[in-house]
């Protein structure tokens, strides 16, 4: 008998499951029409001691002339601290860390030797993821101006929130109402503002039809994401996915609960059908987030890339990690290829509302190195017939009984994770 193991499919783009939401850490400024709504914001955060590199994915879909991004930063950034990054980095990290399905096929239950071995799980392959003067009057100072790739960037410091709001309006950034109030805490903490808009000429030169991710780095003890600013014009819950690459261990929040999503359970095999896993994951996440009243941070994935035998997915190469902002892996010119790297990746998924996340998200790095993945198992029953079991009928009937039991368990599991109707699930199972 052979153990046909593991094929997995989870096609689940991070962006696939967010309700439309208004913003990022920082906010897109523009006409308040639907075209500027972005879906799940995605950030890659590299943390090494007091050094932070942030890469922000722009899935902005409105008119380029209207695009603007405002992010509070702890220091005035230099030209060298800002670059545009390759969007493929997000695709790779998403694919590597996305929630996944693993499939197993039962062996012939009448072959005892192999039946016992069947329970030993082999490592599933992961999902192919697509997985001047007036300024002075306003108390605003332009600390620096750069053009980086398709972006025109200014770094502002401000002494009054009203002044900053006025400056932004006068300079063609459309600020949502209430911005001054949201900006004030950052001004009071003497933070600077990283403000970007699209340089249309440069954008045309790039030849890309999309905006590339902006990446910048700074040194500061602050290990946080300014999520509050993005909530100014938010309606309802927003999703944020943070990929943190660090050296030591799992990253979690210090001012909100960090919770692992329920995972590693067996679910009905019909989830293999196209689109079903995405539908399941979205329903499951909705339910878990609702159960926690949108006030927790979920861990979707944590993996130590230095220890990888066997690998759940091809870990990022040194070149890819460097593109994401990891400075401590040696640039080997791609010689090493995929393999173990001294980097740990934490994937956090937050669904927050204005009310449930009154403070910015503060993070810290623990020394936890226990790997975790949101992985769900499908186990296909053996498809042979009773005639292949002549001579071992007792084993055959025992096996049939155990399959019925575990399918019922899987159905109940699915119902409790998603809130779907158990009768529907059983019906679909029996098809």
């Amino acid at each position, binding site marked *: 008998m052979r153990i046909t193991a593991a094929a997995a499919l989870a096609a689940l783009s991070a962006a696939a499951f967010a309700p439309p939401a208004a913003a990022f850490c920082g906010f897109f400024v523009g006409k308040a029409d639907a075209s500027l709504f972005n879906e799940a914001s995605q950030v890659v955060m590299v943390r090494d001691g007091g050094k932070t590199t942030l890469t922000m994915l722009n899935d902005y879909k409105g008119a380029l002339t209207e695009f603007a991004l405002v992010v509070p930063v702890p220091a005035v950034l230099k030209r060298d601290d800002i670059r545009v990054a390759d969007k493929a980095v997000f695709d790779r990290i998403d694919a590597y860390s996305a929630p996944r399905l693993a499939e197993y096929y039962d062996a012939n239950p009448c072959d005892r030797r192999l039946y016992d071995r069947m329970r030993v799980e082999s490592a599933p392959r992961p999902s192919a993821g697509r997985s001047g003067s007036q300024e002075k009057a306003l108390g605003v100072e332009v600390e620096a101006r750069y053009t980086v790739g398709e972006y025109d960037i200014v770094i502002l410091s401000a002494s009054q929130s009203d002044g900053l709001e006025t400056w932004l309006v006068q300079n063609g950034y459309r600020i949502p109402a209430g911005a001054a109030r949201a900006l004030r*805490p950052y001004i009071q903490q003497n933070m600077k503002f990283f403000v970007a808009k699209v340089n249309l000429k440069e954008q045309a030169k790039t030849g890309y039809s999309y905006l590339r991710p902006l990446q910048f780095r700074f040194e*500061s*003890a602050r290990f946080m994401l300014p999520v509050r600013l993005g909530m100014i014009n938010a309606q309802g819950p927003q999703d944020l996915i943070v990929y943190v690459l660090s050296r030591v261990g799992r990253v979690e929040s210090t001012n909100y*609960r*960090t919770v692992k999503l329920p995972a590693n359970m067996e679910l009905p095999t019909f989830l293999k059908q196209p689109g079903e896993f995405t539908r399941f994951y979205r329903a499951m996440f909705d339910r878990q987030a609702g159960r926690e009243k949108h006030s927790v941070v979920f861990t979707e994935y944590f993996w130590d890339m230095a220890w990888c035998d066997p690998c759940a997915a091809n870990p990022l190469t040194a070149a890819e990690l460097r593109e994401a902002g990891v400075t401590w892996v040696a640039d080997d010119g791609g010689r090493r290829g995929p393999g173990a790297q001294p980097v740990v990746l934490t994937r956090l998924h937050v669904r927050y509302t204005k*009310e449930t996340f009154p*403070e910015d998200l503060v993070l810290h790095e623990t*020394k936890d*190195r226990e790997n975790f993945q949101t992985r769900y198992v499908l186990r296909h029953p053996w498809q042979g017939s009773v005639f292949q079991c002549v001579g071992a009928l007792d084993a055959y009937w025992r096996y049939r009984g155990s399959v019925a039991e575990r399918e019922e368990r899987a159905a109940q599991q699915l119902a409790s994770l998603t809130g779907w109707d158990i009768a529907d699930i059983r019906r679909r199972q029996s098809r």
Partner: protein
Amino acid sequence: MPAIAVAGAGGGAVASAAPAPRPAARAWQAWRGLDARLFQILFLGSLLLFGALLRDFALRWEQVALAFAAGLAAQAFWIRALGLRNAGYLSALVTCLGTSILVRADSLWVHPLLAAVAMSSKFAIRIRGKHVFNPANLAVILAIAAVPGAWASPGQWGSDVLIGLWFVCLGVTVTTGAKRLDVAWAFLGAYAALLAARMLILGQPPAVLIHQLSGGALLLFTFFMISDPMTTPNRRAPRLVYAALVAAFAFVWQFLLFETNGPVWGLFLLTPLVPLFDWLWPGAKHAWQGAAPRR
């Protein structure tokens, strides 16, 4: 977590019951006469269960069992080695519970090691007959700063005002019994005042302050760690000053230096002030009251 009165503490004398005609009054006196650590054990135990069952603490039962085994063994060792008569096991239980609730680890050896070290510190690190470090505080600091594969999760309780109030109720009972309510409230008052000032200066909405104050970690610290009568100054005035200093340190650490676990670090780093304050302003050392079972 309030710890123990060991060698020569002279604790253990129950306030002799004056004639108490009514059963209710008798029951009240009996209640007041109980060792406060019994309440602590009860409350910390329920917190541990709450965390493990409802808050999916990343904690394994083996870690808890090993922490208890090692903590109690350490206590037994010191009792025998030093020939102590009055020392019991209540505060060892408190320490083991505290270690289990506050320390996280990805291995099995961290909890027993820290429980044993924390218990031993009470006997090994003493100034003028008083142990210096709050054992659970020491355990958390070692976990954060020294032990590989160990950490603390200040966010693990979430911020739920109802839970916060629940904690306060529990804590009030314990600290009232321990007669050191003042240090808890002085700390909480000073810390809340600093947070409120920050909120006003930054122009944040009150929701921020409520969120910060209703975190379980802060309340646990307030009512079960800094309120330890054995590791705070003996006299009231220095005790209040000490509490305020810890609050100020915690605030600076967390909101100006952007480090984590401010209160825990504050208590640890300012611990040397306690023997200094006791030397400058001598007072009677706390003695655990109550009919604590003695070995």
